[in-house]
């Protein structure tokens, strides 16, 4: 199976000590490692206001992970762990590789088009080129 990219965000209770959060992150990392995945990035966004109440909390400690995985099972396991972890009040996993693929495609296509336009504009030094240049600026 090809490699997939995921975003994983989880929210802890605001009164959770930092060490506890680190512990959760490390268990997730080992769990991911065991199942052929990898945690690429860990970002702690810190305590933020929640847009609505979650488990009677108005604030939450956000942690963001960027994952690479080759097995869907891995996500299942990580979500199970987050579900049983006491300080975690909410989590969300989003699969992103397809959107990234789309984004790359669009960006590439635009770059190609821009290059073609530039090529077309440069050899013609007549009024046409100046007109297009004026339109672009």
């Amino acid at each position, binding site marked *: 199976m090809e490699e997939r990219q995921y975003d994983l965000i989880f*929210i802890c209770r605001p009164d959770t000590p930092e060490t506890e959060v680190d512990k959760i992150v490390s268990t997730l990392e080992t769990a991911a490692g065991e199942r052929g995945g990898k945690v690429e990035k860990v970002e702690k966004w810190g305590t933020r206001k929640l847009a*609505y109440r979650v488990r009677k909390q108005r604030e939450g400690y956000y942690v963001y992970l960027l994952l690479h995985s080759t097995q869907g099972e891995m996500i299942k396991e990580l979500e199970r762990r987050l579900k049983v972890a006491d300080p975690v009040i909410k989590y969300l996993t989003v699969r992103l590789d397809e959107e990234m693929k789309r984004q790359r495609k669009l960006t590439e296509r635009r770059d190609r088009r821009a290059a073609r336009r530039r090529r077309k504009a440069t050899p013609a030094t007549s009024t046409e080129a100046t007109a297009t240049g004026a339109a672009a600026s």
Partner: protein
Amino acid sequence: MADETRSQGPSEGRPAAAGRGGPGGPRRGKRQYFRKKKVCRFCADRVDFIDYKKADMLQGFIQERGKILPRRMTGTCSRHQRWLMVAIKRARNIAMLPFATEF
């Protein structure tokens, strides 16, 4: 039937009725006010991916009550509105944006 009445309208001296010609109206009537054409903000910035994690950016596309603003208000193109919708819904799921404001 409807066409007949509309074509008769101006001849009978009712310019107001002629001006109200649905979406094609502004071109016909002369007394139309002109609104600046809204351009899709994402197209202008050449955005290929709308990140659901940028909550403060998405905040500009929801109403005070938490509803998603329609395209006719923001001028977003249909493709970007679709991406925006997905991003806002994701952000709602992780409590970065409200489903509906409380109180």
